[in-house]
């Protein structure tokens, strides 16, 4: 009974994670400018990472695999936002301005 509950739980997590991944991908493709695309990609990425790895950890149970999954998750959560930050920063310094309103005029 508990096992199936854990299963259901992890399926839900994995499913939502997958949905977030897809949303992020679509966002990165469809949104109008760089900063919005970055926004879409990085936010969903973090969420999806947490959800998917949590789901897999539930599946793995208490084992070495779970530990490794946790490690991967932690590293991804550290590196992905850092990369996004560095990217945004580099873009900003190069003179590319985020626009105040969506589709707004250049300042």
């Amino acid at each position, binding site marked *: 009974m508990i096992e199936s509950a854990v299963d259901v739980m992890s399926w839900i997590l994995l*499913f939502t994670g997958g949905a977030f991944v897809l949303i992020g*991908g679509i966002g*990165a493709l469809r949104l109008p400018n760089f900063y919005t695309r970055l926004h879409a990609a990085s936010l969903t990425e973090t969420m999806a990472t947490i959800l*998917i790895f949590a789901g897999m950890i539930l599946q793995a149970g208490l084992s*070495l695999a779970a530990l490794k999954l946790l490690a*991967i998750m932690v590293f991804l959560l550290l590196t992905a936002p850092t*990369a996004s930050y560095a990217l945004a920063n580099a873009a900003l*310094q190069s003179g590319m301005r985020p626009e105040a309103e969506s589709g707004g005029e250049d300042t």
Partner: protein
Amino acid sequence: MYTVLSLAILVTMVLALVRALRGPTVYDRVLAVNMFGTKTVLLLAVIAFLFGRPDFLDLALAYALINLVGVLAVLEFIQKKPRKAEAADHD
């Protein structure tokens, strides 16, 4: 379930690749490369589970660690050569 999930990731990889090809700025491409990297980590982790060999998570771990090096190197490069990188946005 894992199959569906990995297909979702694969589709996202396609989307990221399209973004990498389209540009239009260098930063978009870096963004796409970074996305592609993290999606690969996810894909590998999921496939390791799908194949029933979770001991191969090492690979995903290696990717997660290495990815940052690549992205930071690209950014470093852009900032080292600012003028030319700007000029080279469109192709």
